[in-house]
Structure formats: structure tokens, C-alpha cells
């Protein structure tokens, strides 16, 4: 199962600053997420959760170790190639949704595809398909005309559109109430069961429990995990 991970972190360390001011955010973390797997990362503030997610998505580079996404080691990519890989293969869902308020739900979902060079017509039909699939019945509405739960659904649709198989979610249930938060996790779980790999950062045990595997970070290291370890702390 770990043979073909969608994302692999191999002995990844990330140090912020240097010299005596150097602060290790992540220390020798190894973690694989395969297609169809939902992995939750938990840990106290400052344990390295968000750093791990940023490294997995190529938004940040490790000080040492290697991150591989869909078989491509990120250290070997030019900035341009990295940007293309992020756009095509990685979907991000954040707590503050980052939907563009002046675009409709459908246009928000179309945007990353249009940036990929896909024609507007195709992007529109892809957006309509995925929005219908996740239960957004009025794709012509603007973000502020949608409920918090619906906005998060749109953000997830945007993360999924195209051929993206890796979804990185940082506290995607943010300020949502419990039933709406459960809906978001149900949706991520469904996408996972359909073949996506999801890496979820959350401080809420309730949502982490939807994962196949829960990894506990502490002081930048994997302290424990709920599954037979595919990963090790060093």
C-alpha cells in the first residue's frame, strides 16, 4: 500500500532562521499518504502541523530531507515546474477559505483550471460537475450569499477540480458548527474513498477521527500514530 504514495515526506527537517536563533519546526519526519487514504495530523500549537502541510504541498521547502508528490521529488524542480505541479496536482483547503468575493461559486472553482490553460467552456463544465457532486445547487451565487458550510464546500470543490489527487486541508472546519463540520469531513472522506489522498491538519479530535490514521506531532516530531506505522519518527 505504501508502494505508491501520492505524497511522501522522507526524513524531512525544517529549520527557521539560522545560527543561535535557529528554530527547528520539523525534525526528521517521514510520512506517506497513499491514494484513498485520509491522514490527520494533530498536535499542540507550535508542534509543526502547518509546517508539515506547507512542505507536503510545496509551499515551503525542507532544510533537509525530500518531499515527493506524485512521484516527483520537489527538490529537483525549477520554481516554474513546482508552481505547475502545485496547480495541477495539489488542492488546498484552508480555514479562511480564500474564495474570491467578486466571483461566483462556479467562477471560483473554474479559476485554477483557467490558470492551467484549460478553455473557459471546459473549465465551466468541470466546475458545474464537481459542484453538483458536492451538493451546491446554485453555482451562480457569490460567496457572501452562501452559508459557511456551503462556502467550505465550494473551497473543497476548487481544491478538487481537475486531476488533483492530493488534498491538503488546514483546519477546514474552522468556525463551522459541529454538524456542518461533520459534513465537511464526510465530503473529504467521500473524495478520499474515490481515490484522493487527503492530509488534514486539525486540533479537533472529533474531525481527526474521520481519518484512517491519526499522527500526533510534538516538538516537530511524530510522537505517536493510531496505525501500524508506515512512518517512523526518525
Amino acid at each position, binding site marked *: 500500500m505504501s508502494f505508491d504514495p501520492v505524497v511522501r515526506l522522507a526524513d524531512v527537517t525544517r529549520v527557521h532562521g539560522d545560527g543561535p536563533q535557529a528554530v527547528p519546526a520539523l525534525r526528521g519526519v517521514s510520512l506517506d499518504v497513499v491514494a484513498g487514504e485520509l491522514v490527520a495530523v494533530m498536535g499542540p500549537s507550535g508542534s509543526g502541523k502547518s509546517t508539515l502541510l506547507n512542505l507536503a504541498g510545496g509551499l515551503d521547502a525542507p532544510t533537509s530531507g525530500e518531499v515527493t508528490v506524485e512521484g516527483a521529488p520537489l527538490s529537483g524542480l525549477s520554481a516554474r515546474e513546482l508552481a505547475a505541479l502545485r496547480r495541477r496536482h495539489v488542492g488546498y483547503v484552508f480555514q479562511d477559505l480564500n474564495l474570491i468575493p467578486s466571483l461566483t461559486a462556479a467562477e471560483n472553482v473554474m479559476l485554477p483550471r483557467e490558470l492551467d490553460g484549460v478553455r473557459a467552456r471546459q473549465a465551466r463544465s468541470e466546475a458545474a460537475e464537481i459542484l453538483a457532486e458536492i451538493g451546491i445547487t446554485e453555482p451562480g451565487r457569490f460567496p457572501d450569499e452562501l452559508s459557511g458550510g456551503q462556502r467550505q464546500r465550494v473551497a473543497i470543490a476548487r481544491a478538487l477540480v481537475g486531476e488533483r489527487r492530493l488534498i491538503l486541508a488546514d483546519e477546514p472546519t474552522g468556525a463551522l458548527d459541529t454538524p456542518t463540520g461533520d459534513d465537511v469531513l464526510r465530503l473529504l472522506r467521500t473524495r478520499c474513498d474515490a481515490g484522493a489522498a487527503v492530509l488534514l491538519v486539525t486540533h479537533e479530535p472529533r474531525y481527526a*477521527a474521520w481519518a484512517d490514521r491519526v499522527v500526533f506531532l510534538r516538538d516537530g516530531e511524530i510522537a505517536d500514530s*493510531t496505525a501500524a506505522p508506515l512512518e517512523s519518527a526518525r
Partner: protein
Amino acid sequence: MAIRQGLLALLSQGPRYGYQLRSEFEASTGAIWPLNIGQVYTTLSRLERDGLVAPGEQDAQGRVVYTITEAGRAEMERWLSTPVARSDRPRDELVVKLAMAVAAGADPRPVIRAQRTATMRALQELTRAMAGAEGPAQRLVLDSMIFQAEAEQRWLDHCEAVLAASPRTQETPEATRSPEPGSGPSPDEEF
């Protein structure tokens, strides 16, 4: 024990046989509280003694239908409208275990971590069970167990943070929290 009142609640929906009460009780609570048929009949005979239910005639198979009385309805309503006192619940072994670990001078952190992983596994199982839950009564029961497991996780996180900040139980400084320079990475071993 709430078996009495639970049976009264089911009987308030109409007369039932003992075996029906047992299967409906288990279906409603998601079988977290298995009843044996003996408990059901013992409880029914006490309810009958107290005038809260009335038995009907035995049928050909020797089965008796029970019907709730007016006094039974009043008892059920009294029960539903009375909050449950927290002190009625059994002591939590985990709380005692952690307190004793600290009191005995043992390192409570491995206890916390092992429990957190175990509770998370239980929470994962409950979340999976929720996907297959039948009916709102079962979902409410599972929800309650999920919220309790969640509360335990939060409490464990809190304990860990408090113990890390307390000099008595602190073995090594928390590298990420400590503002002083030179507090190196903690050498304590991970699992």
C-alpha cells in the same frame, strides 16, 4: 438505573411484549447497553408491583402484553424532566490513574500519550459506527459517546500542556515554547 424508566418510555408508545421491549431498547441505544431478557421481566414485575404497568391476559404461547398506567406515564415524565446529577456517575479510572501517577512521582506523560492514542482509536471506531447508524436514537447515543471521547482528548491535551509548564513534573524544557535561547532539543525519547 434507568431500565425502569426506559421500559416505561417504550411502553408509552403502546402495549408491548417483554421480548419486544428488549429488542427496542437495544435498537434505540445502539446496543451500548445490552439487556438480558431476565432483567426485562424482573423490571416488568417490579413496575407491575408499583402500579406503573398492567399486564394483559396470557396468549396461547404464554406471552403477556404490558400496558403503561397513568402512574407509569407520570413516572416517565418525571424522569425525563429531571436532570442527571454528575455525581451519580461512576468515578473515572483515568482521572484517578493520572492523579496517582503524579502523586507517586511517576512520569504521567507516557500515560497521557498512550491514553490519547487509545481514545483516538475508539473515536475512529465510533465515527465509523456513525456511518452505519440506524435511526436518530442510535445516532444520538453515538454522538454522546463521540462527544465524551472528544472531551477526554481535550482534557488529555490540557493535562499535557499544564504538566509541561509545571516545574515539578517537567523533565526537559519544551523546546518550541521556551523563550530562552540555548534550550536545546529535548532528549526525551519518543515512542
